[in-house]
């Protein structure tokens, strides 16, 4: 199989396990994202794949060549890997052209320069070839970093939080450009990020990592978002409304109607999670199950607004929730509305201390 194959990686710093039997496959042309909070081991895994950290257990193959197994490791420069880091890691004393050709040391200077210019053309920076990194914007520097990563035609590209140093407008643009170039080159890419939106945008497959260095869930972005395996994974993708209640006759009663829990024993306490974007607000009740609510306030975030609502009647009268609606929302003009739940955005999990 062309691409990256990691199997059974264990890694510890002293007595602390940071990676616990992690395996993954990145076929050529695909992008897999390791998503998780700081300290979950995702960057350690990237460094092990790169050869920057000594492998303790497991194996790593790239394009069917074993590059690391206990007692036998290829040095980083022999693994044919391209890197792209958050801080660009450009050499300040080298020109842009020299930065891009830096990894082409096995080629003649002429061939390396030609390849560097070819890559700079692809990222639209040929006119900056003789400039120095400090003369470029953050977005331009990140394009240089991408050109440098792809210049040696690597078999694998590793991206470590590559866009987090950019402002939001530039980040959106650079990640689209990066994704386009990676797909054009048909290279296997492993990226780490703590940003769920970035992971969803970039990935063919996401691997969610937990604090214990294990992969908690693996799948397409749409599956991770709509079918999170536990509360921890569900909450990685943004704030949620939480309703706690016991299972009674195979269901949990909520302000928005019963949630079926027929495989859970009666009496067990469940936590029902509703994504903010899973609550929509309407001027009238068009469907059975629409719930009358009062609007308390709204906060515009730009492309969406967070709206605070309160149950207007019924057993849960007075209980407050939050909804996310598209665009701006005027609470003064929308005092009394009807709330409706998207069933794809409701999840329920047993009440545990750690959300797992």
């Amino acid at each position, binding site marked *: 199989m062309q691409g990256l*194959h990691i199997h*059974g990686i264990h890694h510890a710093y002293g007595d602390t396990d940071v990676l*616990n039997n992690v*395996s*993954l496959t990145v076929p050529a042309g*695909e992008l897999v994202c390791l998503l998780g909070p700081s300290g979950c081991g995702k960057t350690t895994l990237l460094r092990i794949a790169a050869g920057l950290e000594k492998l303790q257990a497991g194996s790593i*193959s790239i394009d069917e060549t074993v590059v690391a197994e206990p007692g036998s490791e290829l040095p980083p420069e022999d693994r044919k890997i391209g890197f792209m880091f958050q801080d660009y890691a450009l050499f300040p004393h080298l020109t842009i052209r020299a930065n891009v050709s830096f990894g082409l040391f096995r080629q003649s200077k002429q061939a390396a320069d030609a390849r560097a210019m070819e890559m700079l053309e692809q990222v639209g920076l040929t006119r900056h070839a003789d400039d120095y990194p400090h003369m470029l914007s953050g977005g331009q520097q990140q394009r240089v970093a991408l050109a440098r990563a792809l210049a040696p035609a690597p078999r694998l590209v590793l991206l470590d939080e590559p866009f987090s140093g950019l402002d939001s407008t530039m980040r959106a643009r650079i990640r689209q450009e990066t994704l386009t170039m990676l797909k054009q080159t048909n290279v296997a890419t492993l990226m780490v990020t703590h940003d769920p939106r970035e992971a969803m945008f970039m990935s063919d497959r996401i691997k969610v990592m937990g604090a214990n260095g294990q992969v908690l869930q*693996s*799948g397409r972005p749409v599956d991770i978002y709509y079918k999170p395996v536990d509360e921890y994974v569900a909450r990685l993708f943004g704030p949620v409304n939480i309703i706690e209640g016991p299972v009674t006759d195979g269901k949990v009663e909520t302000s928005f109607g019963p949630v079926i829990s027929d495989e859970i024993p009666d009496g067990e306490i469940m936590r029902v999670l509703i994504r903010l974007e899973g609550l929509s607000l309407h001027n009238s009740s068009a469907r059975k199950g629409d719930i009358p609510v009062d609007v308390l306030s709204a906060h515009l975030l730009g492309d969406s607004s967070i709206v605070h609502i309160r149950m207007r009647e019924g057993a849960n009268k007075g209980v407050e929730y939050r909804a996310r609606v598209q665009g701006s929302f005027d609470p003064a003009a929308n005092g009394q509305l009807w709330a409706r739940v998207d069933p794809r955005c409701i999840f329920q999990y047993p009440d545990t201390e750690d959300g797992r």
Partner: protein
Amino acid sequence: MVQISPSFKIESETIDEDHRHLVEIINEITKAIDDGQPQECARLVPDFVAFSKQHFDREEALLAGLSYPLLEKHRRHHISLDDKLQTMLNLAARVVDHPPARDSLRKELVFFLLDDVINEDLNFKKFLAEVETGAPNDTGASGPDK
């Protein structure tokens, strides 16, 4: 074309043969799509799903017979793949009218086989080898059961 490289071999004739057959079906599906016959997916993808389930049953029976200590964990993993198998069936139903579904189906099949099935099966490769040679094993797997 998907090919199983040596690093993906479990070294169990039964299981490796199943994996080979799953690869064959994936390659048939890919060929049908590439040849402009996505309607073939309506037959091939259910075959893939059915054979995957048979493979899981065969594998669990084999491991149960060998008293694999992490069988329950592996069985739970198989159950967790039901949604992905259903996703493939859903995509197969859309590939004729929705070209983007073809790429999604291809990706899902490859990731499913390599990442979800074979990579997980490699966890008991060491156990099977030790059973065959009569060597003692500790946890019976290449990783701890957490």
